[in-house]
């Protein structure tokens, strides 16, 4: 029983990271209908930046904030400089650009920081909270930070004018422009937000999986699975999908297929969702009357 609860708790923790990264994917998908294959490598680069800052003696939370801010600007820059040029290109060209970006970022990180696996600090205390045997502080911290990120995003989209403008630009870019919304800036903003969320996800998971240029490979696949499970156009779905997948992965790993085959859970989920319910759990089947 204790074992089961522990598996569920740590599943929720990794699930939080999947949820964050899935949220970043959904954000870009909603705005441009592109799936950003380089999202994981972007997060990895952000994490290296945080690691470099912390190694240079910057206090953890300050490094955290700087990393999020720099990632935001970098994400916007990528949209402005690179993605804008392929905005109206055929989908395969876009996919190639994303995959190219993934390799470039991966090699760049390896070239600058080396392929040696580094440990990454956790800002949370060593001992388990209240001495409980089920969840350690870092895992609890991941879940908490995920909820904070989701809450902030929800508030941004729900209550701010800028959030509404971003949703408008994603829903109907022509009409958004006719309402005076500069759609290009909104897409850049979406990319910036996605990169910032990815940075948070990278910093949260790095203490668990350790830091190296390939650290996000598997995690990105889980994030894809989470986004699909929840519905690729549903932010709430991405969060639910992320947490469910984290728990499912842990339980399957502990009791069914063993830890070596854990990644299979993500792949099976992807295939199953696409076959059984392509819109996912919460994905909108848009109704339009003409």
């Amino acid at each position, binding site marked *: 029983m204790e074992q089961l609860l522990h598996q569920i708790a740590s599943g929720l923790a990794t699930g939080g990271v999947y949820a964050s990264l899935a949220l970043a994917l959904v954000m870009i998908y909603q705005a441009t209908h592109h799936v950003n294959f380089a999202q994981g490598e972007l997060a990895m680069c952000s994490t290296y930046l945080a690691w470099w800052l912390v190694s240079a003696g910057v206090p953890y939370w300050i490094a955290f904030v700087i990393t999020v801010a720099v990632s935001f600007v970098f994400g916007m820059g990528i949209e402005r400089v690179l993605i804008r040029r392929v905005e109206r290109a055929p989908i395969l060209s876009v996919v190639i650009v994303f995959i190219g970006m993934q390799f470039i970022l991966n090699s760049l990180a390896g070239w600058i920081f080396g392929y040696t696996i580094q440990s990454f600090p956790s800002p949370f205390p060593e001992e388990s909270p209240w001495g409980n045997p089920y969840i350690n502080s870092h895992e609890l911290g991941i879940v908490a930070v995920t909820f904070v990120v989701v809450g902030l995003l929800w508030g941004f989209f729900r209550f701010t*004018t800028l959030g509404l*403008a971003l949703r408008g630009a994603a829903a109907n870019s*022509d*009409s958004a422009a006719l309402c005076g*919304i500069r*759609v290009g800036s909104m897409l850049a903003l979406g990319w910036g937000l996605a990169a910032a969320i990815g940075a948070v996800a990278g910093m949260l998971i790095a203490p668990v999986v350790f830091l190296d240029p390939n650290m996000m490979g598997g995690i990105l696949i889980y994030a894809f699975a989470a986004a699909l499970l929840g519905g690729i156009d549903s932010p709430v779905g991405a969060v639910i999908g992320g947490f469910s997948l984290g728990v499912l992965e842990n339980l399957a790993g502990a009791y069914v297929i063993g830890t070596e085959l854990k990644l299979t859970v993500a792949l099976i989920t992807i295939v199953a969702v696409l076959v059984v319910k392509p819109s996912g759990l919460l994905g909108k089947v848009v109704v*339009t*009357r*003409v």
Partner: protein
Amino acid sequence: MNILTVRDLHASYGAIQVLHGVDLEVSKGGATAVLGANGAGKTTLLRAICGMVKRSGTIEFDGQPIDKLATADIARRGIAHVPQGRGTFATLTAEENLRLGAVTRRDAKQRARDFALVYEYFPRLYERRAQQAGTLSGGEQQMLAVGRALMLEPKLLVLDEPSFGLAPRITQEIFAIMRKINREQHVSVLVVEQNANLALDFADRAVVLETGNVVTQGSPDDMRNNQEIQRAYLGY
């Protein structure tokens, strides 16, 4: 005094030129109707004015040239364009659609007043405000589109076939409200309309387009009295 003056406007989609030097005017507080058969370039004309297609020529709005501006900036100057197909933000609620219309405005008080005004013009929208806009009926979506345009606090309202796909009664209703907007709010109107009778009753000036050229323009009465025009373009 004109709110909008268009001179020698050319527009093209890729290699295909659609407008070949169109001249057009909308007087301040007035209403101009653009008539013509399918494929005459009416929609392209409106899209060119709002910077949605490649264009050249001079477009002057409220004394300022706007022919080099991007669509969003033209909207910010005060041109609200209700596109063909109504341009509904289908996945958002009706109220969010209206809020998007006013998204660039900073004057909270005025905005609240305009919300009340739109709901007064279209009580149906108030009833449907929490509903996903894509599930509204065609007439309600057209009302929503006009309401969204009003939320921009426009000086010029540009409408592309407001009657398209609507029952005659709904069309009458919408035109009645547009007349009110034109007279009471002093918003100038440029409207493309297939239904020539409706358009000529509404407008104080009419332009007839044929294959990207202006064939004739003048007052609605001139159009009604010109039998040749009637036979050829207005379907009498």
